[in-house]
């Protein structure tokens, strides 16, 4: 545990109250001047710390391993946690180090410089405004089960988020709040020939980002929990809750092979079902009504032009509202 991590932890615990340099110095066994240098340094590195007359506070709580671990009641997911201040992307890092990490390892970053999610790219924002997390799993499963992990993860994420916001799922991998994307899932697996090396469950959640920190072009499509609910999110409680739900859902799926519990949650929380969308393929764009999600996790749509009902599972399709993101 570095001195930095301990300082962040202390500020998290006292949030939203301030701590004086003297209080921090006592706790950390440092000189007051060292505390002032440390907080100035963290501020330079874009941490959301405000300091005034030797009083320090966070604009919002930030990710801290001490705070995630406290009360993390899982058996293997998150048993090992790594937090980096800056990574290109947590998924890329997890992939590069896949063989070194055991099943259940969680990689976190305070800041991602080139996250893979389409909407998360190139945001310059204060550290800790979003959660960037990758969970490594190495199951011995029938590979046909792998594609449904996206919707399993979406269901676990909704369970973790529903107590703080009225979220919905835009099939299959985006989490929506007030018709805007606030979280996304990107799962990557690695095969050597026909042998599975591991699976990386990548999750990005816009927790405490401010509207003005997002590029104009994304403001009508994306948002953050705080921007929509006007309430500050505790990222550590959210991560902890997600890891607990994910472990339960993942173990159940591995044991029973039955996707119906999470698929029915995805159906219940669907942002698409019952509405009309443009289904865009390689060389066509057709209006369709979204009917349901079938037992294979596919989206069932009825096209308006032919009245034919079809189950979609291909990446060749993208779903858009007539004149908005969703």
């Amino acid at each position, binding site marked *: 545990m570095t001195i930095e991590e301990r300082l962040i932890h202390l500020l998290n615990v006292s949030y939203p109250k301030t701590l004086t340099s003297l209080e921090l110095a006592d706790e950390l066994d440092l000189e007051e001047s060292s505390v002032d240098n440390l907080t100035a340094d963290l501020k330079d590195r874009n941490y959301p710390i405000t300091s005034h007359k030797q009083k320090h506070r966070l604009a919002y709580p930030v990710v801290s391993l001490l705070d995630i671990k406290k009360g993390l009641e899982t058996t293997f997911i998150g048993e090992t946690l790594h937090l980096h201040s800056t990574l290109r992307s947590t998924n890329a890092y997890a992939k590069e180090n896949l063989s070194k990490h055991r099943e259940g390892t969680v990689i976190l970053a305070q800041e991602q410089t080139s996250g893979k999610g389409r909407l998360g790219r190139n945001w310059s924002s204060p550290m800790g405004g979003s959660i960037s997390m990758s969970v490594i799993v190495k199951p011995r499963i029938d590979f046909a089960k*792998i594609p449904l992990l996206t919707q399993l993860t979406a269901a676990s994420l909704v369970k973790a988020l529903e107590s703080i916001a009225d979220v919905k799922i835009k099939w299959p991998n985006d989490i929506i709040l007030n018709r805007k994307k606030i979280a996304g899932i990107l799962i990557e*697996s690695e095969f050597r*020939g*026909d042998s599975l090396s591991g699976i990386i469950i990548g999750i990005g959640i816009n927790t405490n980002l401010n509207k003005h920190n997002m590029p104009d072009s994304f403001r009508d499509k994306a948002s953050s929990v705080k921007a929509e609910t006007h309430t500050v999110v505790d990222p550590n409680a959210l991560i902890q809750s997600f890891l607990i739900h994910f472990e339960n859902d993942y173990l159940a799926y591995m044991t029973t092979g039955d996707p119906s519990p999470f698929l029915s949650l995805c159906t219940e929380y669907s942002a698409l079902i019952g509405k009309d969308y443009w289904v865009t393929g390689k060389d066509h764009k057709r209006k369709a009504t979204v009917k349901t999600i079938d037992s294979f*996790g596919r989206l069932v749509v009825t096209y308006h032009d032919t009245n034919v009902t079809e189950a979609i599972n291909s990446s060749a399709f993208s779903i858009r509202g007539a004149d908005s993101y969703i």
Partner: protein
Amino acid sequence: MKNEEIKELIQLIDQSSLTHFEFQNASASLKLSKRDADSTNQTLDSVQASEQVSTLKQESKAKQTEKTEMEVDSVEVENAEDESFHLIKSPIVGTSYLSSSPDSEPFVKAGDTVEEGQTVLIIEAMKVMNEIKSDIKGTVEEISVEDGQAIEFDQTLIKIKAT
């Protein structure tokens, strides 16, 4: 249909009491019929007439020829050629991507040298990006699929000549 599968099928039919068997799928059609050669039950006595020996030899040769014909019939020529290449097949149903993004260079092209562990393509399914790495070192003989193509389980993706 793989050669091994056909051999296994022939063995199974051989050991069964069936005298006739027909099978057809997209890649192969197979007709097997057993002739009453009884060769396995015959014991060769050293004093047996040479005539009989030669008849038996002929019979067993005929049976062998029949088997060879069946194998040739059922296996496509293309498949037979593949024996000399290492095939990387799809572990999953999905869509193939030959590059990491639409504007980037393909992971590999025919003629390229690949190292063990090098990414050769991605099969996407339900927003899960399955990165397929080569399990051998060699030269890419052929990329057997196109970018954005729908891929079946076990479909050949890439042929590699081991080096």
